[in-house]
């Protein structure tokens, strides 16, 4: 090879290396930006997180909490560390929210903003630190439910979606689907009653508790249908038995995380859920 050709080649190699470095840098920023919906949370600098955020949405009586408990045990059995979150569980404001809900004096918008405060507090103090440490965060509902609840009460969906624009984009979002009639049956069997908010009594849909529950949950489901399309939910029918539905969940999670086996039998602590 001539000296000129060698020089040309080395210049080209240099240029390629520079390009690759640039690409890598851009890629990193892009990954960071994509972690959040619109803009990063104030005070958060670009960094790589190895953790995963897995959300389970679904109405009351869809078996959400049961499946999250089971998924947690299965993931731990596979050697993954798990953190959980849910609505109204922040240090900052959960207690106040409980009290406010008990009194029913709050307007829909204030309630929506208090729930958003609760979610952001968990995001900053629980979810992001866990993701940073490489944990898998299982979310028992995320802002999708909150958007749906507020939207059926007349607050613009876009308004709320923008408020949640600084939250983390989930790696996977499951939606457990169950008809409201079945959800009612399950909830009633579990608690021997149906709560004021679960049946949307503040919306004065019907004097019949059953009618109110069914009509409210159907409205919520309608909102979740829209969000499901937009955010690419993985929809799973929750009408089947717990082991069946849980198997479907494990299959999806295993594929995402690169786990080979989805075989699982819960420990004695959780076996009562396995029916």
């Amino acid at each position, binding site marked *: 090879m001539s000296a000129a050709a060698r020089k040309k080649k080395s210049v080209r190699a240099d240029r390629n290396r520079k390009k690759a470095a640039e690409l890598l840098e851009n890629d990193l920023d892009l990954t960071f930006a994509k972690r959040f919906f*619109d*803009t990063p*949370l*104030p*005070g958060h600098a670009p960094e790589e997180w190895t953790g995963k955020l897995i959300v389970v949405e679904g109405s009351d009586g869809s078996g959400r909490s049961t499946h999250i408990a089971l998924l947690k045990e299965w993931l731990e059995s596979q050697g993954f560390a798990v953190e959980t979150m849910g609505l109204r569980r922040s*240090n*900052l*404001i959960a207690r*106040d929210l409980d009290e*406010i809900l008990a009194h029913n*004096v*709050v*307007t829909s*918008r*204030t309630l929506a*903003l*208090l729930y*958003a*405060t609760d979610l*952001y*507090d968990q*995001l*900053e*103090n629980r979810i992001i630190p866990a993701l940073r440490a490489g944990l898998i965060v299982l979310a028992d509902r995320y802002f999708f439910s909150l958007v749906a609840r507020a939207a059926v009460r007349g607050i613009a969906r876009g*308004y709320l979606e*923008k*408020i949640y*624009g*600084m939250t983390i984009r989930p790696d996977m979002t499951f939606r457990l689907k169950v008809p409201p009639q079945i959800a009612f049956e399950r909830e009633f069997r579990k608690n021997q009653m149906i709560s004021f908010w679960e049946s949307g009594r503040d919306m004065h849909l019907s004097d019949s508790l059953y009618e109110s529950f069914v009509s409210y949950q159907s409205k919520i489901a309608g909102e979740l249908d829209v969000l499901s399309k937009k955010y690419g939910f993985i929809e799973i029918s929750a009408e089947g038995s717990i082991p069946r539905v849980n198997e479907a969940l494990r299959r999806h999670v295993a594929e995402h995380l690169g786990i080979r086996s989805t075989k699982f039998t819960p420990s004695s602590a959780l076996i009562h859920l396995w029916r």
Partner: protein
Amino acid sequence: MPTAKPSSTVKTAAQPAPVPPRVTPDNPQRPYPGALIVVEGIDGSGKSTQLYLLKRWLEISGYKIHFTEWNSSPLVKSATSRGKKKKLLTPSTFSMIHAADFADRCERQILPLLQSGYLVLADRYIYTAFARDGARGCPEAWLRNLYNFAPQPDITFYFRAPLEVSINRILVGRPALKYHEAGMDLGLSLDPVESFKIFQGMILDGYDRMVATDNFVLMDGTQQVNRLQKHMRGIVRSRIDLNRYRVKP
């Protein structure tokens, strides 16, 4: 009281800002018969004193008025003060919790009273959030969306004094600055006084940027109290048809 002119780059109130339409029952821009008067400005700018005097004048003259303060909803108060005391608040939750507080006051006091034909006087309004949360790093577009349900003020008085003047008014005769008040959560300085100065400067910049976009009436906070009040009353009289708010016997 110092009489020096503010070292401001912004135009003063001498040049009239574009006047919004007068409040009339058939003005389609206003879905309510009430009127909203807002004061804004950094701590020590003199805004609360002036609004108090305006309130006294309107009360004594027999008008239907309601006075509301920033961050005062009883519903959210315990969470906010606990969050501040224990330093649990981050820029995002600080902003959200104040928005919840405002929503509660807005939907249970401000809006219903505007609808029933009151003059509502607000000591700080959404612009406080824009300036302060903006200084904490919340994006402006995000903040504007968050507060998009707030009724548009009929007059927004922006009280402005040079940073040094405002800061001296606050620091004289005050035992200690509070953590968030001094912007200590931003890590600007380990010295609370130094941090307070930097933080107030950032908020002042935020306010100054809104003068043009949000139709502020700029008030020279270094003027004598009674002179400034006379000026303020004149502006209120010229922009709002006060007869509509007289208490009917």
